[in-house]
Every structure is written in structure tokens, then in C-alpha cells.
């Protein structure tokens, strides 16, 4: 008879019928190697769960409070952006009937703020991971922006909806609140379609993120923030190319999964300043 692995496991675990069990035992009686394998399998019937609870669990580090708080904050953002009640100034407004694309946008906006403002620490692999280059010399705001951008999938950007209305509102807000006249670079000749602009915040400072989509592949972000002079440098953060430079009173960073020459080419085609 044919004894496969599944049958032998069922045999040692007592999951075979009496007839099938007798057939296996007949086969074992004439095959010493098979009988030895079955003896090893029988020796592996062990109390794994309790063994790990007793011997492994006590030596495991406890769940860090900071990590728990961050995940709870992420979950709260997800709940708020997917229709839970939003309480504001004593009034309750329901988001339950918000269109799905707006809910998604709100989730991403919430995550953006959370990521940049709280410094979620997603950059540890990026900044110090083995095999990665250049992370140690990159300014923290760029690491945060890169980590945030790394969470963008192509579909996320495509789901974002029409950019023109959103951009017009952002430009008006930047002008009235910050006296900033933002110019959106046209990168169509370089094969990049402008998709969205967001106002973010890192360490209390304004960060403007412009997102472009190439014909294939992941989105590319152009980020800028008012900052003191920084050296121009290129690096790889979490598989993303980052090209950073200074122009006037603003620091810029181009972030995306493009080749280093392609990033440099894009940088050279940008007409600065943007503000």
C-alpha cells in the first residue's frame, strides 16, 4: 500500500480509522526504515504550546508600551476615517455617509499627520538596516517623509480622486495662512503625471508633498520644507532613492523608486524655486 506523509502523520496522531490503521501497521511490520520514521514521528507528539509558554514566553520582551500606543493611535485614525462618530466642539458629526474615496483620503491624511507629527519610528530599518546606504546622514524630516511615502502604493494615489480642486484649496490656504505662493512643477515631459499635493507637518514645521505617478511603478514624491542649509546628497532609504538639496530658504527632497540617474535627471529639469 502507498503510505504518504499525510497518512503517517494521521497514523501517529490517532486520526485514522481502525481498518486504515491496521493497513499502516502491516506496512510498518515489513519496512524497518518506515518504522523508524514513524517512531521519530511518535516522539514528536509533544506539548508544544505549554512548552513555549513555560520555556520561551518568560524570556520574551513584553510588548513595548510605545508600540502599543502607536498601534492604538493608528487604529483610532482608521476608525475615525471609516465612519465613526467625530466629536468636535460639542457637536457630533457622522462620517458614515462620506464617499469611500474621501474616507480613504481622510485615512491617509490622518496617517500622514500621525506619521510625521508623532515620528512613528518607521525609519529604523531604513536608517540603520544592514545593506542600506546613506541613511545616517539624511535629515530626520526627509527620513520621515520617505517612510510616509514608502507606504504609498500606485493604487493609493490613483484612488485619490481629482487633484485640481484639492490643489487649488491647498494653494489658497498656503497663500493666506503662510504667505507661500506654491508652483506645481510640470513633469509630464519626463513622463510623470501630477496626482496630488498635501500639507504635512514634521516637528512643528510645514512640509509640502507633491506626488507624481510615472507610467508604471510606484509614485514619486517631491517634498519641500523651510529649513536651514543642508548639503546636497543622494541616498537609499528603504529601497527608495532620495535626492536632497537646498534652494534658498527651502530644503527639497525627491523620493521614489527610480534609478539614481533618473532622479538626477528629474532634479535637473525642475524649475526652482517652487515657493
Amino acid at each position, binding site marked *: 500500500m502507498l503510505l504518504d*506523509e*499525510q497518512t*503517517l*502523520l494521521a497514523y501517529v496522531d490517532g486520526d485514522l480509522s481502525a481498518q486504515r490503521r491496521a493497513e499502516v501497521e502491516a506496512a510498518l511490520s515489513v519496512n524497518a526504515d518506515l518504522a523508524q*520514521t514513524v*517512531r*521519530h*514521528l*511518535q*516522539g*514528536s507528539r*509533544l*506539548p*508544544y*504550546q*505549554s*512548552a*513555549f509558554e*513555560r*520555556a*520561551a*514566553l518568560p*524570556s*520574551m*520582551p513584553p*510588548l*513595548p508600551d510605545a*508600540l*502599543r500606543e*502607536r*498601534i*492604538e493611535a*493608528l*487604529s*483610532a485614525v*482608521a*476608525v475615525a*476615517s*471609516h*465612519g*465613526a462618530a467625530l466629536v468636535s466642539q460639542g457637536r457630533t458629526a457622522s462620517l*458614515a455617509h462620506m464617499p469611500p474615496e474621501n474616507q480613504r483620503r481622510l*485615512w491617509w491624511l490622518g*496617517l500622514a499627520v500621525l506619521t510625521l507629527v508623532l515620528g*512613528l*519610528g*518607521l525609519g*529604523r*530599518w531604513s536608517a540603520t*538596516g*544592514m*545593506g*542600506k546606504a546613506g541613511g545616517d546622514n539624511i535629515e530626520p524630516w526627509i527620513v520621515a517623509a520617505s517612510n510616509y511615502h514608502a*507606504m504609498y*502604493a500606485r493604487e*493609493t494615489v490613483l484612488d485619490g480622486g481629482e487633484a485640481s480642486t484639492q490643489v487649488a484649496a491647498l494653494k489658497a490656504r498656503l497663500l493666506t495662512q503662510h504667505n507661500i505662493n506654491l508652483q506645481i512643477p510640470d513633469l509630464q515631459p519626463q513622463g510623470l503625471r501630477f496626482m496630488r499635493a498635501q500639507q504635512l507637518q514634521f516637528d512643528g514645521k510645514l512640509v509640502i508633498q507633491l506626488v507624481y505617478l510615472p507610467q508604471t511603478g510606484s509614485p514619486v514624491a517631491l517634498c519641500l520644507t523651510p529649513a536651514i542649509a543642508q548639503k546636497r546628497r543622494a541616498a537609499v532609504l528603504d*529601497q527608495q532613492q532620495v535626492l536632497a538639496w537646498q534652494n534658498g530658504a527651502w530644503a527639497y527632497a525627491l523620493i521614489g523608486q527610480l534609478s539614481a540617474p533618473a532622479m538626477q535627471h528629474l532634479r535637473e529639469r525642475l524649475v526652482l524655486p517652487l515657493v
Partner: protein
Amino acid sequence: MSALAPHLTLLLPKLWRFALRLTRHQHDAEDLVQRSCVRALERQQQWNPEGSPLSWLYAIMHSIWLNEMRSRRLHPVSSLTGDDGIDSDVTDATTASELAEPESLVFCRQIVAAVDALPEAQRLVMLLIAVDGMSYAEAAEVLNVPMGTVMSRIFRARVSIGERLSGAVKSRRIHVA
């Protein structure tokens, strides 16, 4: 309302333990849990609420970790010790409490060591099925492999463990008898 978010906080201790077992490194585990939760929330439309949230979250975590390992071109070592490694050395350090129940705790440690010594693919199926109590189908979903592959890995893992512990099992049974 996000159906997944409440599961995240409830399952966080399990996610944490799985991340520690995957990475064998506390800092890597923290990053892995966080990235997995972000990705899960980002893609929660893909989650079937009738399915197990745990196996779906484990699958995301395993996928992220595999990619990280590929990008580092490294594989986890069998045991790490130190500031942020998880000490799984089971060969020494008998304590007073162990002496109170020497055989039981020592035997538990031998079981843990036998699982930890398995090749990575076999170690993972043992952790999912024997330790976490998942079904073969759930383990296949987590590891993104056919169920036959899971069966084959668990078979080889159990033969190895039985072979390694045969002496320990024998002496234990003799002692108990």
C-alpha cells in the same frame, strides 16, 4: 467603520510574539509589527471579515519580513543574545526554580530548542500549527504556499524533532514510569 482596527489592538500581543519569533530581534519586531499594522489598515478592503484576521495579519507580517530578509540578503540566525536579542540559549543556567521541577522545565526548554533548531521554513510551520494552533489551511495562507507544502514541512519537522528528542523522551518516559 473600519472592521479591522478593533482586531489590531486585540491581536497585538499575538502579533508581537509572532514578530519576535520571526525576527528573533526586539527592534526588528517593533518595526515589523508597526509596518504590518499600517499595511493591513491600508489594504483592509482586501480582508474578508468572515476569515481569520490573525492569519491574514500573520500573512502580511510574513510577507514584509521575507522582503526585508531579501533586501538585507540575510537570514535570521538560530539564536541571538544581548541587549535586544531574544535569549533562547537553553543549554545552561539551571535556576533554583528549575530545581524544584527540574525535569518539566528542562524538557520544555528542550522542546523549544528543538523547534528553534529547525530549518526556517520548517520552524515557521511548527510555530504556526503546533504552537499557535493554526490549521494547515491557515498556515498555508500565512506562508503563501500550497497546503501540500505545509504538510511536507510539518512532516519533516516532526521527524527531525522526534529524532533529536528521542533520547530525552525515552529517559523522561522511563522516569515517569
